[in-house]
């Protein structure tokens, strides 16, 4: 009779203790955070040792299980590389020309931020959280909250920092939230893409799109690491609101507007009126696309279409600067009685992260509180 009672009492004690822990954590008393931080410092060297010891096992496992995938991917990448080689020449010329135009028009480009390049050294330790570990930390100026990007766009934010490492919460984590904007789709002229119909510069891309009020949109490129607006460093193309020049006529499409005829082009620039939806993106856990909850349930929402780019909204309180590319609209979910939601296909492949960059960005509200 004594055994079941003791067992029951042990179970009750276990449950009550854990409920107390959960309550303390939810109330954010600081004690749990301090305990986690302290333990992490003690644990890190052991984890480093364990990583060194287990690496051969890990490599052997991947060698056995991923060989076919690697071979297939290699073939696809060769194909992609050939296609990109063709694209890059056109894109480079376009970037140069476009940056010249931006400089001329004094329009803002992407954030010229310092960044720290880091390598992903650890994956998600359990499927109910989506985090990765990187090999750079506070010694390089990384702080909690800083946005992390790779070549394709935003991938997450720093949630924990150590002197030589940090934990990055990925966009897909259910606790990740960020203010974003959904912009209008546009393309880079002269590039090859299987899924997107490209239109030469000067032809009104938005002619069939009611969101474009002007008739000559072009495409801008975002480079999160740009230090010089006129530089032609390799960039990850993404789209933002394009400027347009009224002087360009549709039949100018074959003429380089920044070439010898540039002097003939009027420099009057019109700010585009492509409407943007604002909302907040939040992760939904492993294997599910993040979703954007829109702030306004108005008529413009219906104009969001698949493929529209999603970028960070920025702002004084936001942990990410504006115009960081995130992904594209993959589905619009209309819900009666509530604001519609938009499912996002991320630009970055979060399952295959290797090198990433931590943007040394601090929100304006923290700089000048």
């Amino acid at each position, binding site marked *: 009779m004594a055994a079941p009672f003791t067992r029951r009492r042990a179970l009750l004690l276990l449950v009550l203790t854990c409920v107390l822990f959960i309550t303390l954590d939810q109330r954010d008393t600081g004690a749990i955070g301090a305990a986690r931080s302290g333990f992490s410092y003690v644990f890190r060297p052991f984890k480093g040792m364990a990583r060194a010891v287990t690496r051969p*096992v890990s490599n052997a496992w991947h060698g056995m299980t991923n060989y076919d995938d690697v071979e297939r991917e290699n073939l696809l990448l060769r194909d992609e590389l050939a296609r990109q080689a063709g694209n890059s020449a056109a894109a480079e010329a376009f970037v140069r020309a476009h940056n010249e135009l931006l400089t001329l028009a004094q329009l803002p480009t992407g954030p010229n931020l310092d960044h720290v390049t880091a390598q992903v050294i650890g994956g998600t*330790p359990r499927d109910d959280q989506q985090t990765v570990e990187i090999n750079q930390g506070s010694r390089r100026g990384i702080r909690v909250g800083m946005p992390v990007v790779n070549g394709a766009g935003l991938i997450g934010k720093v949630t924990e920092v150590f002197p030589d490492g940090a934990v990055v919460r990925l966009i897909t984590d259910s606790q990740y939230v960020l203010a974003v904007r959904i912009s209008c789709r546009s393309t880079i002229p002269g590039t090859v893409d299987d899924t997107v119909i490209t239109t030469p510069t000067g032809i009104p891309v938005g002619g069939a799109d009611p969101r474009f009020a002007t008739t000559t949109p072009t495409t801008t490129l975002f480079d999160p690491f740009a230090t010089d607006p006129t530089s032609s460093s390799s960039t990850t193309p993404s789209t933002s609101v394009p400027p347009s020049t009224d002087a360009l006529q549709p039949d100018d499409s074959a003429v380089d507007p920044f070439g010898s005829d540039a002097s003939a082009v009027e420099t009057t620039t019109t700010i585009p009126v492509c409407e943007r939806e604002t909302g907040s993106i939040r*992760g939904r856990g492993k294997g599910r696309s993040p979703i954007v909850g829109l702030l306004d349930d108005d008529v413009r929402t219906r104009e969001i279409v698949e493929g529209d780019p999603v970028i960070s909204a920025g702002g004084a309180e936001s942990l990410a600067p504006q115009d960081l590319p995130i992904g594209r609209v993959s589905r619009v979910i209309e819900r009666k009685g509530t604001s519609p939601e938009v499912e996002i296909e991320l630009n970055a492949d979060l399952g295959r992260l290797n090198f990433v960059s931590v943007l040394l960005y601090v929100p304006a509200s923290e700089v000048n509180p």
Partner: protein
Amino acid sequence: MLSFFSRPMFRLAAVAFVVLSIQMTLGADLKPFGVTADLMLLGATATGAAGGAQQGALAGFVFGLMFDLVLVTPFGISPLVYGLAGFLAGYVRTLMSDPTWWLAVIAVAIASALGSIGLAVVGAFVGLEGQIQPDLVRTALIVGAVNGVLAPLAMPVQRWCLGIRRVIV
């Protein structure tokens, strides 16, 4: 001093620390069938299957507590669920009049699978989004199967940890 290091609780904490190191490195890297193996849950359920419900609950609490110290999910979920899973594995074992090693393995697999589902349910209960997904059962089955396969290795270690005399034939 030596007696302190030979105490079951110290050994349990030390083993949990080592398993946590493996979970955070190898466990996070190897994903059989796309699912992250949960070696900490294995530690809890193997203890239960080897030593009984109370021992399982205690081990689950320690393993879960340590795991939660390095995760970013709400603190307290893992000790709760792992403790219950360890308790369940031990309870299943006590139901067997003549427990064999393979029945203990099955107990570990079942408790691990239910523990995996329990993590999602408790996570959803405390407000984590995206915990209960269509592939939850598949994930739980894989976690259970992996832990079942590893149970024959884990049970002797856990027996040594807590000074449990072997009773399984």
